[in-house]
């Protein structure tokens, strides 16, 4: 068995798997269908059962070298070949190379008369012969339930079906049995009773006029499997199942940085721009320059010699290129050199799943380093919000796994609470730039913020986002007591500020001069007072001296007088000099 390699890898008796080759399904079932056992695939009309079965065989034959037998109870060989040719499956070629055997079992009730006991040995013989003739490893029984309509005795049929599934297991072929979805049971005739190893349900639901197919692994005995309902689509190359969660969050995170294409924006993002492989959300109201910023990002990638893929849901490529020329961004040379590719489609052209499938396909073929989706919000028209979120999640997971940097623009409507509609999606994004209109003074100016940038120091400032014929530039917005000002108001305010500054400078100088003058005046006053005081002091001293002198003179005179009078009063006078005066 081909699978023996994987068996030896995990010796813990792991169930051998048979890879289907169907995109995504092998991830969900961790390896494929149970090898050597029957798998039941059920679903309503038109949900892709037959295609699932055909693809299982075709991929088995082409990719895994396992021939297969397709036993059809409904479609003839020619019908089958025709139906799947559209999907690029060349059944006729495979049949010629004996990698595939188609067998149409035709059963017509009206031609059959039952006359006693019988069994379905003829079917066994036929199947056995088909398997042995090409050494088939895979078998498909497409809508085995047709037998219930074709054969009269249900009891015999049920016993024979049980035997058939046992026989298939014994034969060691990996079988896919399709069955119509029943009302109460998984299948109309309760086939799930016989096939107990693996049951897959396909579903086709219509929501708001857009149909989405879903796949669910209901049961997988002996194996872990994803239990969700996974959307799948039928594209040009068959079925692809898009597991939302199975991709997991295990993508490698690059620490390499890439430029945004706008120098000042790089500076706002820690000086180096975005991380490679990160997802960037650019939201803004209409006319804020989202497309221009996205185009610069694309150009930056092309300049580095990397491929950029631009999904435009609003404008045609030539319109974008013409418009960008007006801000001297020439994209044409890059498209000519094959570094930039546009993919334009109206969102309403097809459902979300189809959009996703086409985007995947474009990404697979172009292998870009940068993907731009402009605008993501247009896709909301094609699906509900939760579906769009699921789709974007899948897209982002996929892009991150591939290390592709992605930029999603998102249109917010004026008047809406700014972050509301993006909440669902912004959590998936690594960086979120916000473009905003600031209206005032009869003009409208664009402002850019970095709302978040995971894993890097980023500016918390808002910058004025200028789009001119020279390109995009970011200017520091005026932030002052009057609020954030932009545009002409910013220029005016800056001029006003400058004038104010000048005035206040002059004021200060004047005040300083005044103070100096005052001080000088005071000093002068102090000096005058001091000299006055000194003059008074001098005067006082002089008076004192005069008094003392006069006293001395008077005393001398009195003494002289007494001496002249020879009075004994000398002693008296000597004792109290005033007394003789009193006696006078």
């Amino acid at each position: 068995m081909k699978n023996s390699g994987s068996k030896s890898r995990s010796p813990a008796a792991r169930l051998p798997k048979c890879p289907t080759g169907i995109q995504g399904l092998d991830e969900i079932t961790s390896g494929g269908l149970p090898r050597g056992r029957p798998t039941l695939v059920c679903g309503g009309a038109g949900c892709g059962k037959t295609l699932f079965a055909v693809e299982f065989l075709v991929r088995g034959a082409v990719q895994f070298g396992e021939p297969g037998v397709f036993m059809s109870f409904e479609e003839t060989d020619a019908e089958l070949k025709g139906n799947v040719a559209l999907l690029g499956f060349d059944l006729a070629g495979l049949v010629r190379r004996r990698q595939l055997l188609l067998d149409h079992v035709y059963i017509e009730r009206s031609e059959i008369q039952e006359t006693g006991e019988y069994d379905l040995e003829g079917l066994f013989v036929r199947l056995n012969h088909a398997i042995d003739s090409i050494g088939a490893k895979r078998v498909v029984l497409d809508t085995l339930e047709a037998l219930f309509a074709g054969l009269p005795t249900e009891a015999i049929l049920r016993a024979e079906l049980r035997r058939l599934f046992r026989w298939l297991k014994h034969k060691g072929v990996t079988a896919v049995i399709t069955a119509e979805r029943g009302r109460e049971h998984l299948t109309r005739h309760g086939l799930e009773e016989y096939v107990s190893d693996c049951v897959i349900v396909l579903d086709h639901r219509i929501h708001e006029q857009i149909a989405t197919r879903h796949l669910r692994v209901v049961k997988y005995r002996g194996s872990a499997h994803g239990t969700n309902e996974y959307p799948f689509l039928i594209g040009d190359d068959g079925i692809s199942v898009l597991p939302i969660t199975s991709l997991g969050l295990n993508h490698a995170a690059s620490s390499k940085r890439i430029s945004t294409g706008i120098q000042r924006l790089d500076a706002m993002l820690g000086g180096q721009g975005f991380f490679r492989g990160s997802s960037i959300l650019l939201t803004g109201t209409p006319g804020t320059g989202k497309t221009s910023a996205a185009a610069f990002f694309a150009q930056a990638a092309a300049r580095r010699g990397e491929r950029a893929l631009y999904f435009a849901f609003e404008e045609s490529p030539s319109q974008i290129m013409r418009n960008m020329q007006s801000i001297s961004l020439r994209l044409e040379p890059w498209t000519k050199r094959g570094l930039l590719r546009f993919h334009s489609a109206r969102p309403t052209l097809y459902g979300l799943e189809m959009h996703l499938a086409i985007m995947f396909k474009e990404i697979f073929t172009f292998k870009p380093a940068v993907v731009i989706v402009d605008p993501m919000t247009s896709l909301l028209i094609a699906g509900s919000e939760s579906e769009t979120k699921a789709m974007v999640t899948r897209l982002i997971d996929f892009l991150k796994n591939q290390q592709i940097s992605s930029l999603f623009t998102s249109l917010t409507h004026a008047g809406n609470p700014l972050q509301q509609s993006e909440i669902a999606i912004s959590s998936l994004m690594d960086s979120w730039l916000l473009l905003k209109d600031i209206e005032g003074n009869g003009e409208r100016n664009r402002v850019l913020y970095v709302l978040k940038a995971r894993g890097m120091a980023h500016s918390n400032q808002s910058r004025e986002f200028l789009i001119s014929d020279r390109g995009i530039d970011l200017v520091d917005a005026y932030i002052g007591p009057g609020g954030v000002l932009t545009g002409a108001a910013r220029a005016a305010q800056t001029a006003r500020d400058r004038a104010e500054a000048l005035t206040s400078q002059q004021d200060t100088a004047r005040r300083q001069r005044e103070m100096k003058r005052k001080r000088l005046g005071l000093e002068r006053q102090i000096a005058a007072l001091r000299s006055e005081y000194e003059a008074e002091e001098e005067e006082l001293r002089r008076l004192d001296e005069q008094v003392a002198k006069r006293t001395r003179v008077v005393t001398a005179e009195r003494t002289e007088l007494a001496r002249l009078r020879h009075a004994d009063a000398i002693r008296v006078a000597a004792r109290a000099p005033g007394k003789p005066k009193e006696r006078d």
Partner: protein
Amino acid sequence: MKTRTVKRHESNSTGAPAKIWQLRLYVAGQTPRSMTAFANLKKICENHLKNRYRIEVIDLVEQPHLSKGDQILAIPTLVRKLPPPVRKIIGDLSDTERVLVGLDLRPAD
């Protein structure tokens, strides 16, 4: 069991060749059920189509590729190849009445 062709073919009294019934019995190995079917068939033919029938027994175990041509699923299956239209009768042919109806030898009432 090999493919056997049992011919019971005679001219009738008028001399014109009788309408020959061509019957084909599909079996898978010599199981009791296929033996029963063959015996039942032979009995019915002898009783109702004497000298006007030819039975071809095909053992699918030996010739599995022949199952596709007549779209054989059930075993045993009796196919009336001639006269047209083709009729198929499944089972061991033990219900004679139904066999006769199935072979158009008797109206279904």
